């Protein structure tokens, strides 16, 4: 497919992003760049200085709602992308309501409990939706530990072992790799497997 053909398909698609931290903000940026039609963003938090080591925000956006700052940044990349924002702490009923019209849902929370909550909600109430999760991305190095696997409509991206801790903080490179892996998995769901790619 040419990029024009790709854009024509993606223009009709909606992706939900649950959480706009390191995973969500970078995944949304990648999807806006390739021409996704609509993004539904949810996050209750404000941009803080400590986020700038990995999240797609700028120094002059500190103090803004993440969803508002991200919407601004996405429009600067692609003014045609439609963006719906929800500045709420998502619960199961919110997830079911705001993501029910999405073609794919991206899980981009930080807390393991929230990751479980969305998996449970999507599995039980939106069983026809693909859910792309990010699990394990703290620290640096060990590129080859980062991978993805699929079980039915659930896709897991990440190393599945490196939880964040004071001595193992999340940093731009590994968080960005997983965020882009999630965006890449979304494209494979929306466009199908790329037949022109070389699979070794």
């Amino acid at each position, binding site marked *: 497919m040419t990029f024009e053909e790709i854009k024509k398909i993606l223009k009709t698609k909606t992706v939900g992003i649950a959480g706009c931290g390191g*995973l969500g903000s970078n995944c949304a940026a990648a999807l806006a760049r390739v021409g996704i039609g609509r993004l539904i963003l949810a996050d209750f938090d404000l941009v803080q200085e400590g986020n700038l080591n990995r999240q797609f925000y700028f120094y002059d956006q500190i103090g803004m709602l993440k969803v508002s700052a991200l919407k601004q940044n996405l429009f600067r990349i692609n003014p045609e992308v439609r963006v719906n924002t929800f500045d709420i702490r998502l619960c199961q009923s919110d997830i079911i309501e705001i993501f029910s019209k999405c073609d794919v849902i991206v899980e981009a929370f930080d807390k*393991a409990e929230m*990751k479980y909550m969305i998996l449970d909600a999507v*599995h039980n109430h939106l069983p026809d939706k693909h859910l792309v999760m990010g*699990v*394990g991305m*703290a620290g640096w190095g060990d590129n080859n530990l980062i991978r993805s696997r699929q*079980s039915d409509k659930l896709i897991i991206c990440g190393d599945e072992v490196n939880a*964040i801790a004071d001595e193992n903080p999340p940093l731009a490179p590994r*968080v960005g790799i997983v965020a882009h892996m999630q965006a890449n998995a979304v494209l494979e769901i929306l466009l199908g497997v790329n037949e022109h790619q070389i699979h070794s």
Partner: protein
Amino acid sequence: MKIILNNKEEELAGDTLTISELLKVKNFTFKMLVIKVNKQLIRKNEYDSVLIHDGDDVMVLHLISGG
């Protein structure tokens, strides 16, 4: 019995095993686990009652914080 555990073939003693027994045998001691057996999500309160049989496809995912 032979099962598929996290996409790999695994040989286990006995004909059946509860989820709790499997977690013990494989030394999965994490708190925040997601378990799927043949694509079905298994809840924590079912770990002692749901049985794994020969040929089952089992996914064990350890949810960890970061994102």
